[in-house]
């Protein structure tokens, strides 16, 4: 395929980006060993963000090739701000865009459109999101590339988004005064969660302790009215702990180094081992970093970032954390796909183990479910709940969540043109399982 050399070039460029980052950072030689990843340019200042932006935009340019006509009729709409609050109803809006462009030239067309949009936040995130749609529905390979390679392109687009968003937050923080719109710090608890309590309580009534665990679990998830971001309290807690941030930054650097040295992905559970090394075996800290700081996509930088900036609480470390945390979500996913194996007992799908503990592997790519619930399991256990109660609470919440979202999955699948009934049910079962498994691991790790 003619686009393959260009994609290969992009991969090399992304890897080179990591190397050039090393060259600019002052890193003692001792910490560049395998046990301690090299340090890359921290995304904590306007100057560093601009340096990285120059790199990223040049990669997108080279991937896009010579300027071509805009692939969609409505250029302004593609370049405009991409709102994610109504993310669950995006399918009807987004899928027609995918259908209008020949699939095997879609990635390059997106790169060309991003360039034509001046690398706007809207165009970069919209493009990343469209690739996510393909990926979530097992269609990423229809672009003509292996899935992990497609995710490299997606993550480059998303990093451009994070880069521009972070730069904007710095400007907002500079101009912040005492007035600001209502934000996530002001938001009341979400009323839509009340039915969760009512429905979720029902099967747990027979075990009052599990019921209390469920209530505590929902309280920790902490949904807020008008916002998508969960874990507000836990997130702020982690942002105040220097050791948590240090682990996040070291892990992010490690992920970038893995991109440059993919042979390291051959070590089974290698990512988990690295996390334990980097944290000196502090599993609860690992679960906070993976389960809270790193598993919430762009939601923290979208919703917490402006609130912190408005209050002049957006320190360089916190900006770096919002950037790195969001990107870790995508990088773990990308590297998981590259490290995944096809095992004899599950020959039709990829099995992921690289970032999971030694005793665990899954064919479900949704690693964040596992670590969200591992964090929750750990927290509940530390508060004195028994493993069985933790498990029941996590499984109940996952069951309610999947039971509700299957209503959205069915019409979404029809829009995309995939099996509307069986696969959503099977996927929901997979998700409940990985949620439950995560909670069990967290409870065990923190008892």
């Amino acid at each position, binding site marked *: 395929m003619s686009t393959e050399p260009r994609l290969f070039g992009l991969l090399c460029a992304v890897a080179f980006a990591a190397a050039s980052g090393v060259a600019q950072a002052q890193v003692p030689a001792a910490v560049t060993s395998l046990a301690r990843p090299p340090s890359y340019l921290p995304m904590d200042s306007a100057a560093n963000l601009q340096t990285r932006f120059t790199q990223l935009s040049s990669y997108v340019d080279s991937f896009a090739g010579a300027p071509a006509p805009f692939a969609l009729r409505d250029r302004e709409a593609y370049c405009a701000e991409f709102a994610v609050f*109504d993310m669950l*109803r995006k*399918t009807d809006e987004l899928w027609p865009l995918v259908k209008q462009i020949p699939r095997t030239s879609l990635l390059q067309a997106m790169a060309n459109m991003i360039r034509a949009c001046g690398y706007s936040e809207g165009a970069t995130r919209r493009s990343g999101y469209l690739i996510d749609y393909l990926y979530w529905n097992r269609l990423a*390979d229809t672009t003509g590339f292996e899935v992990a390679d497609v995710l490299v392109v997606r993550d480059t687009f998303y990093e451009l988004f994070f880069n521009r968003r972070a730069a904007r937050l710095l400007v907002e923080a500079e101009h912040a005064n005492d007035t600001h719109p209502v934000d996530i710090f002001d938001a009341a608890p979400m009323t839509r969660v009340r039915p969760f309590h009512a429905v979720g309580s029902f099967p747990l009534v027979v075990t009052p302790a599990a019921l209390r665990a469920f209530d505590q679990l929902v309280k920790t998830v902490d949904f807020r009215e008008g916002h998508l971001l969960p874990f507000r309290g836990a997130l702020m807690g982690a942002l105040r702990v220097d050791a948590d941030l240090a682990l996040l930054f070291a892990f992010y650097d490690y992920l970038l180094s893995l991109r440059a040295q993919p*042979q390291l992905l051959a070590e089974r559970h290698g990512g988990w081992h690295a996390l334990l090394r980097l944290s000196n075996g502090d599993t609860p800290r690992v679960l906070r970093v993976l389960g809270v700081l790193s598993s919430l996509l762009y939601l923290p930088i979208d919703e917490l970032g402006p609130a912190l900036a408005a209050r002049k609480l957006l320190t360089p470390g916190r900006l770096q954390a919002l950037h790195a945390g969001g990107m870790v979500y995508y990088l773990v996913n990308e590297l998981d796909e590259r490290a995944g*194996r*096809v095992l004899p007992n599950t020959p039709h*799908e990829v099995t992921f183990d690289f970032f999971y503990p030694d005793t665990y592997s899954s064919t479900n790519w949704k690693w964040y479910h596992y670590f969200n619930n591992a964090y929750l399991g750990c927290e509940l256990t530390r508060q004195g709940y028994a493993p069985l109660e933790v498990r029941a609470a996590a499984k109940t919440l996952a069951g309610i969540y999947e039971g509700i979202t299957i209503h959205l999955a*069915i019409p979404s699948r*029809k829009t995309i043109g995939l099996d509307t009934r069986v696969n959503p049910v099977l996927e929901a079962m997979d998700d409940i399982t990985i949620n439950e498994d995560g909670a069990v691991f967290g409870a065990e790790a923190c008892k």
Partner: protein
Amino acid sequence: MAVFAFTSLATFARRAGADDAYYEGEAAAVSVRSDERVQVGAKTDLGLVPFPDRDVWNGRMNATRVEATAGMSWKTGVVDLDQARVQLIRWPHLHVLGVERERMLGTTVGIEALALYVPFRLAGTLADQHWALLTVGASVGYRHLAESFQARASGDVAFATPSVEIVGQSSLDPRLSLRFSMGASYVAAVGSLDGRRGVGTAHTAPVTVTMALAYDVTAKPRLRSVRHTDVATGEPRFVQAVNEGRRFRIMPVQLLSQIRPFDTLTTMTSSLLVAQVGASYEY
């Protein structure tokens, strides 16, 4: 006056049940039944009803079912509408507000107000070539029963129907699949029958098993191979994914058998075999 009637979910038998809840799209079929009836039926699933909460989803619910089956007796040559349904929401896990007609339950017209089903996975994940789901649930509604429509007694009843069903599919090759279902249920009905005073009971317990072969004649097969390079060895491996787009399938054979060890609700035969051929255009 009340009558408690017990029966299985004979609606499994209205058409070949192996393609009911889990296959969405359009279908048409011709059936021959061992009770000397021949049937012609069709169904379609439509996206008519918009989501009530537009903050969450601004599309349509993709849930409305319209179906009908006409039947003719070999003996008398009389043609009748054996089964029909118009239902706002008919998803595998949720049925809301359907108007139905069902000879297998002696019902000339009925309303399924609400049904909730919880699926449990017995086998299969997303990429597997085989899957099986166990569904447990119940429906509630109203039925008008008529002796002229093979009910044992005419009347009006409210009903509640707990049921259990196993549905599965196995891909024999990328185009040929075997579908199956096994189900049983229990209907408790309360109402007036035949104008009799007092409480009467009627019950039945059919066990329904269906099997169907479906052959995909769409240009691309349902499953495709996806290349995945093993990072440890550099060797190409291949996993499975589903192709986009609706599938046109012919169903060269569907068999349904139903046994009713006892039945005081209808005058249906105690054992029934249905052979069917058809085609479907589905996801």
